[in-house]
């Protein structure tokens, strides 16, 4: 049996989906982002059923990707659970009436029931059930209220197959239904609502946005540092070091194996960053140096997504983003890019025009450092002083602004105007926020660790046979002359194509000066994206688009690197 969840954007389908199936969808309180669909399983009346979360649409006639997907999926479902937002009864019922015209059994989950009562909306469930002719179950997906009854009632779904109505007829019918079943009592604004409103007002909204940005950045940096100091570092030094030291002793008679597993020794001691072995650097860099920041970043992002702040930010920043040829929505992929550029590229799909998508993707690839790179910037550069970290981020911001302005005036196409629904703030269950964090952390580990494990010995071997020496000598004029870096830094830039964190491990032992670190960090960020980002950009923007983006990256990366090298710091 196939159960489809259908409803308007923001009706709470994704949370209901996790309630029904016990699995988490990485979605957010941000209408229209779930363009794909997710499926899971649940038990209904002793039987195993497949549950599918369809993209949110206002109407089955909706144009655009989401509408297409929703229509297609409707064809092969057995039962529809129509999720209706009780605070938006009138608008949400339009889709309900359309669904009731289809030849498929429907049951309605009247969700966000608690909020509806709080804001003074009373709905007569028995009456609406009678008028629609299908079961209607009040639910609160975020707390789980009503879910059990909903599951028990799924087999009672009714197929109406009402005769097809015109748009006007449907709205007229909705008017009748709402008039009879809904009672709204006027009520004054609560303090919470006034605060919520403040975040979309120009002046307080801008101040709040800045404060949130600072708070998130501080949390990611200092929280990550704390996890590194109090968890990661002790585990590696106290627990793992004795183990690898023992292995190092055991393999000392087999130099090749020792080089691969443990790597080089310094004063006959292992250095987790510089030894460059499978059991040392290949594990230490992803788990100790990068993972702490991945955890704090995705935790902060999860909170912003789940509470519903992100769309408000998109609205606040729309005017600014339009100057760079993008819709306010583009801020979401940009923020995602600070975690990993790959999901950020995918998230640009919420943008409608090709122009916007090209600009957003190019700017993310050029000026938005992913968490691995930021770990490098904060960890390595930060040791020399916070002013150098500020210089790097400042430079990237200026680059973002300049290239954005140029692209806005040169890329052909249009930028659609803002038209967004601002969802109310919601408190998600902690469990869901934490599970989402776990899915993302697991995703990072599954991606980063295998590549590091392959990259470390491969780079080791390339070093041994002198390949890097050749590349290094070839590019020396540019790297040393133009950028002022030791020519060995080219290996890091080269390796960054495969994995940003591996690049970091290569830069660490070079004893760079603060200025050289600033230049190499900025060049690493701007120059080439990693191979995963590269692949996804190719898929999303095509060969021509990718070549254009790469051209911009190389030219701007070298220019900015050379300019920074001229700075008297």
């Amino acid at each position, binding site marked *: 049996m196939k159960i489809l969840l259908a409803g308007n954007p923001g009706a709470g389908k994704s949370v209901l989906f996790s309630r029904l199936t016990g699995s988490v969808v990485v979605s957010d309180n941000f209408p229209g982002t779930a363009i794909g669909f997710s499926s899971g399983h649940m038990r209904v009346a002793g039987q195993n059923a497949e549950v599918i979360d369809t993209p949110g649409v206002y*109407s089955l006639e909706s144009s655009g990707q989401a509408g297409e997907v929703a229509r297609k999926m409707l064809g092969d479902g057995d039962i529809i659970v129509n999720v209706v937002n009780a605070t*938006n009864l009138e*608008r949400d019922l339009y889709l309900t009436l359309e669904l009731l015209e289809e030849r498929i059994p429907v049951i309605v989950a009247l969700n966000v029931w608690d909020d509806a009562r709080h804001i003074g909306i009373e709905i007569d469930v028995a009456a609406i059930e009678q008028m629609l002719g299908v079961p209607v179950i009040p639910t609160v997906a975020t707390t789980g209220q009503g879910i059990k009854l909903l599951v028990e009632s799924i087999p009672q779904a009714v197929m109406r197959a009402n005769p097809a109505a015109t748009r006007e007829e449907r709205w007229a019918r909705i008017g009748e239904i709402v008039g009879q079943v809904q009672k709204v009592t006027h009520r004054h604004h609560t303090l919470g609502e006034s605060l919520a409103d403040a975040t*979309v*007002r120009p002046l307080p909204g801008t101040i709040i946005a800045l404060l949130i940005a600072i708070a998130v950045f501080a949390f990611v940096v200092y929280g990550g540092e704390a996890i590194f100091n109090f968890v990661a570092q002790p585990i590696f030094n106290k627990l793992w070091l004795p183990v690898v030291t023992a292995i190092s002793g055991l393999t000392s008679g087999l130099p090749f194996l020792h080089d691969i597993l443990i790597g080089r020794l310094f004063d006959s001691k292992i250095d987790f960053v510089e030894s460059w072995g499978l059991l040392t650097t290949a594990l230490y860099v992803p788990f100790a140096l990068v993972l702490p920041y991945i955890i704090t970043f995705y935790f902060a992002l999860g909170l912003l997504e789940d509470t519903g702040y992100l769309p408000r930010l998109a609205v606040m920043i729309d005017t600014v983003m339009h100057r760079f040829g993008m819709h306010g929505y583009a801020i979401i992929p940009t923020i995602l890019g600070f975690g990993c550029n790959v999901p950020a590229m995918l998230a640009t799909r919420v943008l409608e025009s090709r122009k916007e998508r090209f600009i957003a993707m190019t700017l993310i690839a050029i000026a938005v450092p992913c968490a691995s790179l930021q770990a490098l910037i904060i960890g390595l550069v930060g040791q020399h002083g916070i002013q150098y970290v500020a210089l790097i981020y400042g430079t990237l911001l200026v680059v973002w602004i300049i290239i954005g302005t140029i692209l806005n005036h040169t890329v052909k196409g249009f930028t659609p105007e803002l038209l967004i629904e601002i969802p109310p703030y919601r408190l998600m269950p902690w469990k869901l926020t934490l599970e989402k964090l776990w899915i993302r952390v697991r995703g990072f580990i599954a991606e980063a660790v295998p590549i590091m494990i392959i990259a470390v010995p491969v780079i080791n071997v390339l070093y041994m046979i002198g390949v890097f020496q050749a590349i290094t000598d070839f590019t020396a004029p540019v790297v040393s002359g133009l950028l002022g870096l030791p020519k060995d830094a080219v290996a890091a830039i080269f390796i960054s194509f495969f994995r940003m964190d591996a690049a970091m491990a290569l830069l660490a032992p070079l004893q760079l000066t603060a200025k050289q670190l600033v230049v190499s960090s900025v060049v690493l960020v701007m120059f080439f994206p990693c191979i995963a980002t590269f692949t996804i950009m190719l898929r999303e923007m095509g060969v021509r688009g990718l070549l254009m983006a790469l051209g911009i990256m190389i030219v701007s990366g070298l220019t900015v690197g050379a300019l920074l090298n001229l700075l008297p710091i």
Partner: protein
Amino acid sequence: MSMENAVISLSNLRDGQQAVVSAVEGGRGLVEKLTAMGIRPGKRITRFCSMYLHGHITIRVDNVHLSLGRGIADKIFVIPDGLTDENTSCR
């Protein structure tokens, strides 16, 4: 005819003023999308707030806040009903 009953575009409504939608112009796609989001003739809306520098306008329809650009607001025609919402101002 008093000022209250004249048809004006949403862009010309003042922050905090309430009005009833009289017509939505523009392409089929836009009209459909706005209709689905609750902006259709006969609906009461409140202009909630607007961004400086000629930025977007935020309105309330039923229990939803919608933000839309000026170009779209120019295509939505409303009749102010003379009421203002004390909860709605830009301060």
